[in-house]
């Protein structure tokens, strides 16, 4: 096994792993606050990618700039989805709530998938910019600009999120709600509003990941399920509600998948899924246990 091939593979895996982490963080945040698992998260990511794609195709806005309107649009969509679909569930008993939110997320994913095919066809799309092929080499290893930027961006966003959660009042309110929603309510925290903003934030994070995917990789309507699964795997690896760990676990998953391609080829997805099942069975609280922030 050529060391260079291995290293290159690892690098590409880390790049995509950063996106897995970004996708997972959104999912984890939402679960922590609302105790609901949004299995349409991948579809929100897909939508974010498409918004960026169309901003680029129609208005020639650079995708890294289009990140902002894309994030904004998904923030609004997130708020709407929360108010319309998930908020009515908030009052239910925990078990029923989780089950119903799973079902609603499921229905939503099908609806979005279908809508995307209808609006934009099932074809793959990709944003091609001037600098798409640029990159630099170090020790004979290739570092494509866009994918590297993706990792950098994901890291920045997650660091910013951590700052938000630890330094701002609203961020602390989110953490408090995650740890003990009843006590949080007793502090005067508006749980409904906190949940809504968290959900919208989750959608925004998904949109950002989707944007990077549209530039560095490719988007198509069916990618939702794929990305939801990746996010689920990462979230389970890191432990539900663990945000910092989610990023690390994402990078880990990306690296493992990429390297295993060298050994088991097209079964690399299976490797991730098998690890997922093992963790579910043996350590449902994740590899990194349960903590926040």
């Amino acid at each position, binding site marked *: 096994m050529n060391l260079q091939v291995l290293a290159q593979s690892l690098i590409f895996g880390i790049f995509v792993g950063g996106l897995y982490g970004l996708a997972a963080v959104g999912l984890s945040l939402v679960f922590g606050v609302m105790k609901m698992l949004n299995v349409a998260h991948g579809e929100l990511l897909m939508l974010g990618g498409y918004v960026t794609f169309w901003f680029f195709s129609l208005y020639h806005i650079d995708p890294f700039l289009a990140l902002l309107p894309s994030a904004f649009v998904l923030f609004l969509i997130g708020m709407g989805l929360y108010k319309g679909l998930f908020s009515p569930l908030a009052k239910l008993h925990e078990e029923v709530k989780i089950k119903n939110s799973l079902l609603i997320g499921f229905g939503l994913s099908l609806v979005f998938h279908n809508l995307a095919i209808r609006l934009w066809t099932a074809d793959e799309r990709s944003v091609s910019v001037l600098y798409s092929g640029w990159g630099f080499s170090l020790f004979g290893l290739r570092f494509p600009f866009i994918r590297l930027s993706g990792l950098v961006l994901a890291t920045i966003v997650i660091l910013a999120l951590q700052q938000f959660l630890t330094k701002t009042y609203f961020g*602390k309110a989110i953490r*408090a709600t995650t740890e*003990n929603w*009843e*006590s949080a309510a007793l502090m005067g925290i*508006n749980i409904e509003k906190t949940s809504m903003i968290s959900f919208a934030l989750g959608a925004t994070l998904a949109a950002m990941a989707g944007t990077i995917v549209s530039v560095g990789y490719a988007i198509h309507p069916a990618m939702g399920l794929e990305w939801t699964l990746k996010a689920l795997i990462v979230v389970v690896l890191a432990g539900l509600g663990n945000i910092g760990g989610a990023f690390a676990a994402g990078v880990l998953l990306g690296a493992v998948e990429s390297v295993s391609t060298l050994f088991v080829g097209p079964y690399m997805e299976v490797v991730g899924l098998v690890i997922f099942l093992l963790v579910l069975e043996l350590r449902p609280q994740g590899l990194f246990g349960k903590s926040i*922030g």
Partner: protein
Amino acid sequence: MLEIEKINVSYGDLQALWDISFRVEEREIVALIGPNGAGKTTTLKTITGLLKPFGGEIRFEGMAMEKMAIHKRVEMGISLVPEGRGLFPGMSTLENLELGAFTDKGRSCREETIEQVYELFPILKNRKKQAAGTLSGGEQQMLAIGRGLMSKPKLLLFDEPSWGLSPLLSKVIYEVIGQINHSGVTILLIEQNVRMALELTNRAYVVENGRIVKQGDSRNMLNDQHIREAYLGTESV
């Protein structure tokens, strides 16, 4: 200040409170006593909004509150120090206090209030960066009380403040509660230790099986035959 009139509360199909009525006047300190599972915690939860009653009214400073959201009631000046403290275990002592001051009223004088809490409970200042979940039982109770004070409440509710604490610590906590009341805060508390509760408070209500069965001046209750037999019998003098 607080008027509860004929409220009924159920957990699903299981009714827990039947036509509960009582009142707490401003600056009073009132106790709810009674056996485990009688409905005392349920009552406090209903006052704060964690549970919604069917039938009956809850009035705070004249305003009807039964339909109000929890956070709104806190803004109106009701604060609860929950059973089991209800702290945010992963967050630091200071952060727990800061969150107590989440309301506008609390935020406006947050720094001042924090200093006051440190004066009441000096040990919390030493622990301010420490995660709340790692504090000792007594420290946690102090933090819970301190946090309850951060919103500058008019009415402070306590659910079993001496639970799990040594007699010495319980005494300290009770002194603090007395001090808080003297500073002008109305207090309604639930307490297992009936003697302490009756010695500290002005009036008390006895709750049994989801109903109020006795009420009156705490001093009189201490001498009441039924109370002595039911709740003070095992007390060593």
